[in-house]
């Protein structure tokens, strides 16, 4: 009886109405953005070689930073999920630090390590690698702000995999690596891919840290800012629409991959 009253149509209607307000809050501004510019203007922008270059920089940078975040973040999240101790709590705190830092501050701290007068920046420049005002600078900035999404989401995914399954696999004669590859990773994969999708989206939209680390080559958010500050908000709309379209397209692909991969 108790469960029936919770799931009764009246109560569900109330939750839908409350949630619906929030959904409208998301959708209306995006719809207004799309309605603000004729479709032709967006198509014209897409044929502009400099815009194509900006889109490419954003896509390549976000892809590389997502891969880097995954390669380093997934092992860390696995370790965190299996290590229940005070030090793991401290490390989780460190991981989420970039989430709570203002992006512009993230750019400043990165600049102090990888900038032209910073030790690592100078060392890299000495061997011909420029860590600022380069695609590498974009990737460094995007990875810093986006990788926590991979770690935090994958951590939740790994924590949801029953350790008994790993124990069973090892008892059946399979080593740690085989067990992780064939049991743990497939079961955690939806969560990992969700984390990658969030990291990619965050990297695509990253602006503050990128502005400090790599004003050039321009990413889409930087181009939007330049258009807005130079010629007014109307001139920024077409490229903003492009950014939304590219991000949504990639998220749809990742979400399709993430949904229930074993069926």
């Amino acid at each position, binding site marked *: 009886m108790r469960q029936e009253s919770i799931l009764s149509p009246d109560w569900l209607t109330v939750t839908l109405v409350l949630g619906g307000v929030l959904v409208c809050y998301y959708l209306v501004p995006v719809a207004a953005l799309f309605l603000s510019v004729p479709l032709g203007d967006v198509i014209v922008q897409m044929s502009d070689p400099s815009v194509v270059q900006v889109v490419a920089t954003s896509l390549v940078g976000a892809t590389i930073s997502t891969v880097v975040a995954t390669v380093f973040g997934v092992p860390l999240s696995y370790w965190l999920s299996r290590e229940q101790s005070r030090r793991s709590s401290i490390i989780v705190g460190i991981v989420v630090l970039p989430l709570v830092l203002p992006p512009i501050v993230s750019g400043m701290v990165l600049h102090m390590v990888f900038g032209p007068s910073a030790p690592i920046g100078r060392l890299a420049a000495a061997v011909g690698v420029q860590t600022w005002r380069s695609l590498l600078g974009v990737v460094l900035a995007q990875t810093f702000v986006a990788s926590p999404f991979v770690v935090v989401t994958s951590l939740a995914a790994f924590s949801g995999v*029953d350790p*008994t*399954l790993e*124990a*069973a*696999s*090892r*008892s*059946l*004669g*399979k*080593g740690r690596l085989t067990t992780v590859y*064939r*049991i743990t990773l*497939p*079961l955690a994969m939806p969560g990992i891919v969700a984390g990658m999708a969030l990291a990619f989206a965050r990297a695509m939209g990253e602006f503050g840290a990128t502005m400090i680390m790599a004003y050039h080559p321009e990413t889409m958010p930087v181009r939007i800012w330049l258009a807005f500050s130079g010629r007014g908000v109307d001139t920024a709309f077409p490229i903003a629409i492009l950014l939304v379209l590219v991000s949504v397209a990639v998220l749809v692909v990742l979400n399709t991959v993430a949904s229930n991969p*074993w*069926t």
Partner: protein
Amino acid sequence: MLELTTLRTSYDAFDLGPIDLTVENEVLAVLGPSGSGKTTLLSTIAGIVDADGGMVTLNGTELTERPPEDRDVVLVFQDGALFPHMTARENINYAATGATPIDALIETLELTEVLDRNVETLSGGERQRVALARSLATEPGALLLDEPLANLDAPIRHRLRHELRDLFVSLTIPIVYVTHNQRDAAVVSDRIAVIHDGDVHQVDTPTELFAHPETPLVASFTGNVNVFRARIADHDRLEWSGRRMCAPIDGRDVGQSVQFCIRPEHVSVVQSSTNNPNVFAGTVTKSVFQGSSYNLTVQLKHATDPVRLTLSSRTYDRLELAEQEQLRIKLNTNYIHII
């Protein structure tokens, strides 16, 4: 042969051992209540929990420091621990070494119909069969089972425990079968080890353990057994609540305080008045129908502790018993066991 030598460990603030056990190519049931250390014992043998001391050896090879995958000891978990992203067939193939004919295993465990189903859709009994097939597909040197029947309905449990017994007989490896259920232990095993608070209290064959528990604790794990305090009165008599009765004293000292036990099914109801010292008058205070039998609680006139007995439904009806009915019961000398 699986040997545990002063094996001990601490896990989740629980201390296990030291435990000494030897398991030949037989089934050893580890019987004990929840929290007694049964699962910790299996996990330590399997290498999932590290031992703090002692040794685990299998056929003379020490396993104590080896990781679980190098022990040749397979643990079957309580719920089967089947991999949910695989079908039943994929679960079995995952473990297969290639040496074992999987088809024969599948046939023996009647899994043909469920092989291509996702394991999430299997019933409890089917899951346990798949888990067992998966374990045997590795051709283990020893098999450990953690309450494999615990979550099953009574009819399936009844059927599966007999099937398990038949299967185990065909395997010539040490098998450790953990359970809190006396009936499972009695049917499935060759010997039973009673464990409580991390220590083994008695190891014996099922018949011997049920007939001659060495301590009241062991007696309490082997069913709803009656345990009473008494005193040795002479070479063949016990004094129990002021009454003398015949009992197998076995050379104990006169005057010694002891406890004796008798199983409910070994207490009988007698109809005629008799001078037999083992017959006592009392009143039925509780009667519980169990299907094919009744469990009675009888308050004797001379003793404070009630006596529990089990009667077949047929006998119960023939004697026209009911609660508050007067009766006489007999504690058969042959079934009295002094602890």
